């Protein structure tokens, strides 16, 4: 008896928390399907009996969400690929090769973790101007094309490979590039996937930097685009929210598909201490 009461109580708590967590998202969806007047109407509508879908197409074209999303996808995918490439290469060198100054260089990679991008925006902004990259993709991508975390996590992962696998490949005459491609990459798919998701999300969610280095709609990412959208009239809130949902949707999908890698990526550095 007592356990069933406790179980019921547990469900009650779970449901209440779930409602609280979901509520803002739910209302955002509801209001995106109402007209501006309906949103302002009191008492408020909590369930849209006659959903209006045109807010989404308006957000897409009139709110430039289509352009913003395209920019975000291009920037995030390229940033992820670039960060992955530079991190895999550096991690391989640190894990499998001996060379002078190796430890110092690795410490420098770790030191970058102590320097948040926010601290260096002022000179970086000037660098972008000097390079003529204002309002371009390189400005959004290149500064994040290397990752201290990526190098660290991948090196840790690479080092877990038994030394004998490398020895066997050396004896068989496999060079480093072939060993990297044939053995190291396939055997570290999990960590590479986790880091890729992490890099993609970090890039996708950037706000301050894209705000600084772009000012044209054609090169604004979707996060900064939401800022433009927010400035619409109060009676256009349905468009604002439709745009917000469009901005969040890709990430919901990615997280739904790659749940396991994500949890791994997020917790790799944390739980293992």
């Amino acid at each position, binding site marked *: 008896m007592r356990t069933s009461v406790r179980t019921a109580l547990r469900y009650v708590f779970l449901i209440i928390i779930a409602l609280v967590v979901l509520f803002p998202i739910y209302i955002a969806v509801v209001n995106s399907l109402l007209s501006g007047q309906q949103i302002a109407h009191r008492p408020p509508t909590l369930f849209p009996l006659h959903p209006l879908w045109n807010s989404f197409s308006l957000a897409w074209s009139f709110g430039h969400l289509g352009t913003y999303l395209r920019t975000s996808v291009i920037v995030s995918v390229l940033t992820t690929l670039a960060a992955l490439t530079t991190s895999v290469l550096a991690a391989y060198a640190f894990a499998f090769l001996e060379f002078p100054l190796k430890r110092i260089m690795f410490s420098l990679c770790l030191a970058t973790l102590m320097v948040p991008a926010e601290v260096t925006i002022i000179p970086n902004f000037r660098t972008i101007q000097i390079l003529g990259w204002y309002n371009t993709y390189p400005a959004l991508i290149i500064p994040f094309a290397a990752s201290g975390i990526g190098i660290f996590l991948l090196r840790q992962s690479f080092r877990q490979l038994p030394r004998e696998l490398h020895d066997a490949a050396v004896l*068989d005459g496999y060079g480093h590039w072939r060993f990297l491609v044939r053995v190291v990459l396939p055997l570290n798919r999990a960590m590479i996937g986790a880091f890729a998701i992490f890099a993609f999300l970090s890039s996708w969610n950037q706000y301050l930097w894209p705000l600084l280095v772009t000012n044209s709609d054609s090169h604004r990412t979707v996060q900064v685009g939401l800022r433009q959208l927010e400035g619409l009239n109060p009676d256009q809130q349905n468009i604002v929210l439709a745009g917000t949902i469009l901005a969040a949707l890709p990430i919901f999908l990615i997280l739904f598909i790659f749940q396991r890698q994500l949890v791994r990526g997020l917790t790799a550095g944390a739980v293992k201490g």
Partner: protein
Amino acid sequence: MASTAISLESVNKRYGSTVALDSLNLQVEPGEFFVLLGPSGCGKTTALRIVAGLETPTTGTVRIGDRVVNDIEPKDRDVAMVFQNYALYPHLTVRRNIEFPLRARRVSSHERERRVMEVAESLQLEDQLNRKPGQLSGGQRQRVALARAIVREPNVFVMDEPLSNLDARLRVEMRAELIDLHLKNGTTVLYVTHDQVEAMTMGDRIAILKDGVLQQVGTPKDVYDRPANTFVAGFIGNPPMNLMPGELLGEPGMIVGIRPENVFLDDNGSIETRVTLVESLGHEHHVACRLNYDNETIVFVRVPSTVSQVPGIGESIRLSITEPLYHFDSVTLERKAIKT
């Protein structure tokens, strides 16, 4: 003329302050099954890796055949290695694992297929070719590791405790298989183990290593019958040779050794003892007895199971001994080559 297959001349290897190998000299003859035996940490793996080229000796010369190979890349030494934990690529099928070295050598796909099939057949792996290592038993993985070495048709095999991860029964089976294989293709094998039984049953010759220092090289019979020092005497044979302080022809400062099989239960024997431990192995019993003489020294006796009366713990029994007795200098621990 190829005088030796592998030769190490005054090879030293240091890791920081650790001396892993101390002026090691070894000559392995062509076609020989040569065993490097010693306790864990004595430098066996280091020696193998130096032969394979995975480590460079701090000083000394390594030859394979007539070539000095110190400056030769591992891949150009024509040495295939079998690793203790197999070193199979978990993401590749058995077939891809076996042909891995051939792909590196750009062997034609036709030739590759032929050689893989041939090796797989000889190791009974035909049915496993499309599986991944994770789906195989320990014995099968071991075979794949061997196959990957054999398929290269190398001049020399080096094997680092290849059987140590198998259970006792499989180990005995694989021992026989390895010897079989060696007899069939006659390639030189440098084989590392810490298991003296493995060494004694498989090796044409055995080199015993301790703390990076070579103790003795010889045939199994040599090292058993004429151990160079107390370490070899104690390391080879189970139970180990009984060693006790004693004298030789009135000269003190000696250690006297006697193998347990040369000690007998004998009601008329002159040695009075008390039994402290009995281990029954089925085919024989190992009986540990404490000498009444000093109430301290323990002597092991090997008692065949044909003996009906096995003594119990605490029982007083008498022992007698036969030749040979061994004598070791108690300072240098070297055996005195005096016939008794």
